[in-house]
């Protein structure tokens, strides 16, 4: 497999909050939009962590729901990476999830668990 380019990495790592230049400020992470991706049934939290990373089960790499108009790429391989608090107001694929696990103490249920403080009362 070919190695990932630094541009691709920079883009992805911006989402991941990893690259020095792309680290998201906490102020941004505190703004909870009306329709955050974290409450969408198509959002898959990163299996590794609960720092807010994840990907979309519908949209593929190359999508951008933050622009106006948004870009929806439905064909391709790798999923579109985003964060719990990404604003999905413009996403026409958004479907609000029904949560089962209300207190977050049960584990291994990424689609349903409530792990971030900012979404607690949503």
């Amino acid at each position, binding site marked *: 497999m070919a190695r990932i380019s630094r541009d691709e990495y920079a883009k992805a790592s911006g989402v991941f909050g*990893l690259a020095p230049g792309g680290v998201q400020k906490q102020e941004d992470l505190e703004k909870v939009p009306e329709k955050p991706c974290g409450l969408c049934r198509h959002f898959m939290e990163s299996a590794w*962590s609960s*720092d807010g990373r994840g990907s979309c089960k519908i949209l593929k790499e190359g999508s951008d729901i933050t622009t106006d108009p948004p870009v929806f790429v439905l064909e391709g391989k790798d999923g579109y990476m985003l964060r719990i608090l990404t604003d999905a107001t413009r996403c026409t694929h958004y479907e609000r999830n029904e949560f089962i696990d209300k207190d977050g103490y049960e584990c291994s249920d990424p689609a349903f668990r409530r792990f971030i403080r900012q979404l607690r009362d949503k």
Partner: protein
Amino acid sequence: MAATAETVKELEKKQEWWWAAEKKRSRRLDYLRKAMWKKGAIGGLYPAGLQIDLERPVMQTEKAKELESSADPYVIKFAKMLAHVLDNKTIFITDRSQLVGYLGSAPNMITWDPTLAAILNHEVFNDPDSLPQPLDESLKVIRDVTNYWGGKSDLDKILPHMDLGDVMKVLSGAIGWGVPLGRGGYSGKDYEYIMTGVRAFEDIIEELDRRIDEADARSHRFDASREISDLIDKINNWEAMKITLEAGIRHARRYARLARIIAENFESDAVRREELVRVAETCERVPAKPPRTLQESLQYDLFIQLFSRNEAIEGAWPARPDFYHGPYYERDVNIRKTLTREEALDLVGEFLIRAAEVSQYKPKWAREGLQGIEGTWVWTLGGVKKDGSDACNGMTIALLQAARLVRVANPTFAFRWHPKVSDEVMRECFECIRQGLGYPSMRNDPVLVANAMHWHGHPIEEARLWVHQACMSPSPATKHGFQPMRMANATANCAKIIEYVFTSGYDHVVNLQIGAETPPVETLETYEQFFDAWVTQMKTIFTILVRPVNRARILAPKLTPRPFLSAVSERSVESGLDVLEPSISRGNAWITAFTWVENIDSLAAVKKLVFEEKKYTMAELKEALLNNWEGREEMRLDFVRNAPKWGNDDDYVDSIMLDCLKAASEFSHEIKCPSGNNWPILPENVSGNIHYANIVGALPNGRRLGDALYDGGISPGPGLDKKGPTAVLKSCSKIDHVTNGRAFLLNQRLSPTQLSGEKGYQLWKTYMKTWADLGIDHVQFNCVSDETLRSAQRDPEKYQEVIVRVAGYSAHFVDISRKTQDNIIQRTVQGL
């Protein structure tokens, strides 16, 4: 509460060991045990009352800002930051305690190190329950600290130097966990250097001064060479080591001063005043000078562990407390008789409690994978000395007895069984198991000494000094043998191997191409082709996980140095190189193989039902798996019931286990660590089988997405070992426990009723003899009845103290998620 009127005997008869222990232990131990805050997460979240400590991150950030424009190299800046924390953090002494030291500023505080990873800091910010009140003020502090460390944390510094494709796949969390960091993982210690009573911090400082002076003189001769240039780095490293040791001595003396202040000004009880003076004298003595008594020895060890955890997140606690504290126990209790056995037991019990309360903020995946505990504090007991003679001593027995009194879930013990272990010690081990602690796990010492020599070339005298590096893997606590950091991300979620055979490496859970693009599974015409695809996926996953670890070990000495751990390591003090420098380490790497047996049962099912009986086509099976068996329940049950399963002494499936291990062990010799040594696999699970339940898709063994995975290692699937304990052992004995892998975890559940009385001990002893004769390297037992466990699910308040063996560690039953609880209950209870 317990029915207090009942006698110890009555409680023991009812097998309510926890209430019996409460009555049997001393008033001091009872107080200390109840004053302890449990730190393990319940399921994935920290329990109510625990709070993230903001004192330390603020201190680190202030000091880092202050040092930004200093002329110091990074390693010295880092050492000064560590010293700043040790000099200024809040300290306290718990009432009635004789041992002091804690990471946080209060007993309910969990320390958070913001210098490690920006993504960890985001988790702190997101944590719904553990932020101190008032929330707005805490959030402001966290925001400021996190903003400062964004881009400056260890992970931020190290990842751009990695293969970026590997990084993305590792950070997806699908195939492994953890990150490749020199300051986050499992740190061994060079106990042969630091814990033998020969030297302590002042002796090392003296040696460092001498080396600095010599190097300084040498580097200023009329000469210029690479060697002279390297001396500058070495001098910096030695200076950084010295800074941390001096800070350690000062920190201990802060406790001495506090103890004296309390004794002289606040304590009215004369006996306690004397104890506090003894605490003060102890902390004035250690870690500056070598210990002379059991109390000093335990305190010295505790300080070293805490200083090391001020430097890094340590998810394990490799230790051999009976071996290194035993001589002091012997001297105080049996020779000088300055301590009674009961007094010694108080100290030993408190040592367990002090270790149990250690806590560092960890990401949620770690909390889920290690439910109910803070980390794998698996302490090694028993075994042999360098010359091969029995190493058990009075301290071995004291530790096993103290464990039954304080009943902490962490640390747990693993006992190095060998043919010369006395019956007295075996009975003590058995009592712990019978009383439901789930530990000690039993390790076959001759097999594991041979294994350490085979895989990593440890000389026999060093191999005999091995300790558990984490749950299972042996590592000698010697100059070149000890492992300074085992990075957790070489932990493979192996069920993905078979899953990726069906998806050509695409991961449908995290929406990424992670595995190899093997041919579409429906095009594979023979079982051999199918197995080849499995081998390709296995190699791909192992490679993706191992490469970042290798890279991080190479980068670590410069980017993420460990001056304190270096300072207590002979090879670093001698060479001036950071302890993480691979060239001065023999290497002791291993790949933890989570969710391994699913592969074996799945391969057997495909071989039988698809290739041999042709009941289903591969295309049908692929479609059923992609649809999570929906609408194909009958087919699923066929794969569950009518395919052979591991653990029943059935050569059909057992031979597949051997084929898989052979392929993995051959590959283990091909991939090398930066020290040039091998990467053997080690099947075990902790509670990763629950963490990964929703991350692993449907499998050909009949498992659905979301179902708990097997409990791990080479343990058969819960309820799938239908032919009794001997059949399980016989299946396991077909594996070569020296050459097929590093170690193999085996969970067994035994009936508490059957183990009662002398007859129970004799039954267990016979079982253990069979186990040893068959050359199996590990076994651990759960010995709590279904009835008790179900009662604990119904009425958790009443059963707070029930402990179970999860996998590689023990936990209080009420602290693990419902899914994990059910998984333990489902395990087959073996009648002996």
